[in-house]
């Protein structure tokens, strides 16, 4: 319990930095909307095509935006040597992981809350129902778990901007496939019963990789 409280302090610190600088969320949201607009140029000319590709576009956008915000979360720590401060603080490595994980999750949610309405406007699809919220929340947990782990790793390499996407995209394939297909089923008018298998895959991914990342994280920041 105490560990979670410490993690929340780290997440709150990230949020406070973000509220003061407005660096990450604002620029990532602009980037995400740009991606959607560019996809619209590519596919949006006829409404039928737009319906067909809409879920795919949404999840590609989230994956791209996720990489950007995840990268920033550790670049800031590294640039100001905050990570050293965190490591000498009397908290376990696991708490640091949970803190960064919560922070990244909040950032991803924040970005989605802004991007999804814009997306539904531009593509004329209704995106406000409980099933889609469920898919989005579950998939974001998966993104944030491996994302936090890999971002911590990428920041100590020589080409951090390159290493994170190259690692992140293949590993989150199951989440992307499941989220895109589940969203498509819901947009076609399906209900919760139609997407249980997909939700199961995302759920399994979340459980496996939250636990694995939690256990492995201490090996990444140790010097």
């Amino acid at each position, binding site marked *: 319990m105490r560990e979670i409280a410490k993690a929340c302090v780290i997440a709150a610190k990230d949020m406070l930095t973000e509220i003061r600088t407005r660096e990450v969320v604002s620029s990532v949201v602009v980037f995400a909307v740009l991606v959607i607009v560019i996809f619209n140029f590519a596919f949006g000319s006829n409404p039928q095509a737009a319906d067909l590709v809409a879920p795919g576009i949404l999840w590609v956008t989230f994956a791209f935006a996720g990489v950007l915000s995840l990268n920033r979360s550790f670049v800031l720590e590294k640039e100001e040597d905050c990570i050293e401060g965190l490591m000498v603080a009397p908290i376990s490595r696991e708490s640091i992981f949970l803190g960064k994980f919560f922070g990244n999750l909040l950032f991803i949610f924040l970005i989605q809350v802004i991007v999804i309405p814009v997306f539904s406007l531009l593509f004329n699809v209704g995106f406000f129902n409980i099933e889609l919220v469920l898919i989005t929340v579950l998939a974001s947990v998966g993104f944030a778990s491996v994302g936090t782990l890999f971002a911590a790793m990428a920041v100590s390499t020589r080409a951090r901007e390159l290493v994170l996407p190259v690692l992140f995209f293949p590993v989150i394939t199951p989440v992307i496939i499941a989220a895109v297909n589940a969203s498509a089923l819901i947009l076609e008018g399906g209900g919760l019963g139609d997407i249980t298998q*997909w939700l199961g895959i995302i759920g399994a991914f979340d459980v496996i990789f939250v636990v694995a990342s939690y256990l492995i994280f201490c090996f990444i920041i140790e010097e």
Partner: protein
Amino acid sequence: MKRRVLFFVSSGLLLASFYMVLVFVPTERDMGIVQRIFYYHVPLAWIAFLAFFVVFFASTGYLIKRKPLWDHIACASAEIGLVFISLMLLTGMIWAKAAWGVWWIWEPRLTTSLVLWFIYVAYFIVRAYVVEEERKARFGAVVGIIGFLNVPLVFLSVTLWRTQHPPLTIFTEGLAGSMMATLLVCLFAFNFFYFYLLAEGTLMKADERAVKQLKEESIRRNP
């Protein structure tokens, strides 16, 4: 000495497998000559997965024991696995062109292998961008573990995604005796060959590390 034995056994078996695949085994009735690729395709796939399992195992060993040997095994096995999975994808594509008339189909096993290929390419990209030897091993181990944990989920999601489409022709009937014998010889040959390559690769990594240390030492002495 053991390496020499492995070398002779695997070369003997590989020669035998050439003979069996090219001369001994009868040409398959429906598929024709291209079916012979199957005898190499299957062992290549098996060895790739075995190699990635060894990467996972040795990576875990490295994180627990911190002996460079474990990292040498993991890295050597990842190299072999990447070569074999590339060959497996290539032979699979040739097969697909002959059987289905296209170079690539998004079939579950092919797609899973492609995702794996990306994960282990990322393994080497991460290693290439880390300078310190010890950190290189640690980061490699993390990717080796996460990448392997992901295999069942990737396969599950890809299978679920593709079963929404009509199933492809799958081999339901068993193999004829001579074909089975050929396949078994190929499997044995490749297994021995893998362990031979692994032994050589591991020793080579150890040599590389020793040379690097000598170099660094001599630079330190005469700057």
